[in-house]
């Protein structure tokens, strides 16, 4: 069968599985959107985020996490983790790229029912070392896991990978706004995560099979070890289809359900301006650009320029918007505006 005929046949399969458009369950799979910035350096313990929705968790060594313009043909960006200092992974060391999907977005999988469907995970990757990597697909609602493997065959070369996940008739994904499926792509890990032998099917979660005994990759054992990904797609069905490109505007709006910010522009006009009497409390309500997944964690970053107002405060926040303001220090026009690129209000409802 010609490659074009094969692609059409695969799309026919996708149609049978329920979706020709919006079939990619991964938001920002092409790594285009990076609202938080394009680089995190000196990451030692915790999460590092540049490209929206894509997380990195490390607790061993020191890492730089970046959005890159290096990508395979047909893509403009990728996500990279780079080791800048190393230490032993011991028993509990971790370096993984992860992505968490809301339960509401997974109902089409019909997991936990007699009609449960397979899923296909596909992506492009590139690394400085060959080796076999574990990916643990974690059902967070039912404490189950399906651990699969892929192999980097050539160094410093973009490779395309596909992984088929079996249908699981046990344990439905909750139909809510919490995380239900977490995809953990492992670069390296401690021995406690490698003592088991995954079956390749969905099974009861156990730390011993998060990497399992099939994982051989050692990204992070040496300085300058790196791993990059882009073109990440998860779709219902048994056949990987070509990556579904969405517009930048579509991806940004989808990302803003999980993170968004206000400000970030120097010398801009006031974002909020009103006339208040001295002592009165100025409160400006502001709807979010996109309704957020949950009430977000918020921060006021930088030194905002204010006129006739004491301490600027976020007075209330929910998943639809926020109120910002403070007490008027004298009667007159009260203004609030960012005066540098670093002045931000950030809102995170990330998973």
């Amino acid at each position, binding site marked *: 069968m010609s490659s074009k005929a094969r692609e059409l046949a695969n799309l026919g399969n996708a149609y049978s599985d329920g979706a020709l458009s919006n079939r990619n369950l991964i938001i920002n799979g092409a790594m285009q959107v990076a609202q938080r910035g394009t680089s995190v350096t000196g990451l030692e313990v915790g999460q590092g985020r540049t490209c929206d929705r894509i997380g990195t968790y490390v607790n061993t060594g020191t890492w730089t996490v970046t959005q890159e313009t290096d990508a395979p043909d047909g893509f403009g960006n990728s996500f990279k983790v780079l080791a800048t200092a190393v230490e032993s992974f011991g028993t509990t060391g971790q370096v993984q790229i992860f992505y968490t999907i809301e339960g509401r977005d997974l109902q089409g999988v019909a997991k936990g029912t007699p009609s449960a469907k397979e899923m296909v995970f596909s992506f492009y990757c590139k690394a400085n070392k060959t080796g076999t990597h574990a990916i643990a697909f974690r059902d967070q609602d039912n404490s189950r896991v399906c651990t699969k493997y892929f192999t980097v065959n050539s160094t410093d070369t973009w490779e395309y990978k596909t992984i088929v996940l079996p249908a699981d008739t046990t344990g439905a994904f909750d139909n*809510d*706004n*919490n*995380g239900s499926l977490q995809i953990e792509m492992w670069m390296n890990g401690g021995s406690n995560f490698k003592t088991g032998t995954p079956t390749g099917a969905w099974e009861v979660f156990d730390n011993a099979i998060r990497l399992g005994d099939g994982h051989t990759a050692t990204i992070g054992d040496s300085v300058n070890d790196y791993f990059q990904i882009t073109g990440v797609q998860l779709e219902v069905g048994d056949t990987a289809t070509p990556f579904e490109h969405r517009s930048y505007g579509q991806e940004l709006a989808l990302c803003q359900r999980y993170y968004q910010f206000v400000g970030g522009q120097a010398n801009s006009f006031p974002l909020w301006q009103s006339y208040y009497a001295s002592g009165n*409390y100025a409160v400006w309500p502001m709807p979010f650009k996109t309704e957020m*997944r*949950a*009430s*977000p*964690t*918020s*921060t*006021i970053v930088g030194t905002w320029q204010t006129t006739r107002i004491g301490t600027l405060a*976020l*007075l*209330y*926040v*929910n*998943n639809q918007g926020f109120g910002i303001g403070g007490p008027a220090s004298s009667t007159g026009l009260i203004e609030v505006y960012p005066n540098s690129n670093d002045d931000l209000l950030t809102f*995170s*409802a*990330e*998973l």
Partner: protein
Amino acid sequence: MYQHLPDFKGQPAQCIKRIADNAFIPMDPANTDYQEYLEWLAEGNEPLPADTE
């Protein structure tokens, strides 16, 4: 480490402050930062009292 926030106009604050990054965490069970705070509380920790104005 966390800190309570002062009442706003006579109403109890609906957020807890995370001191490390001055983040305001809403008391929403679906917020992952609030979930971490609850785990921290369950370990027997106590937030600092609110600043007095």
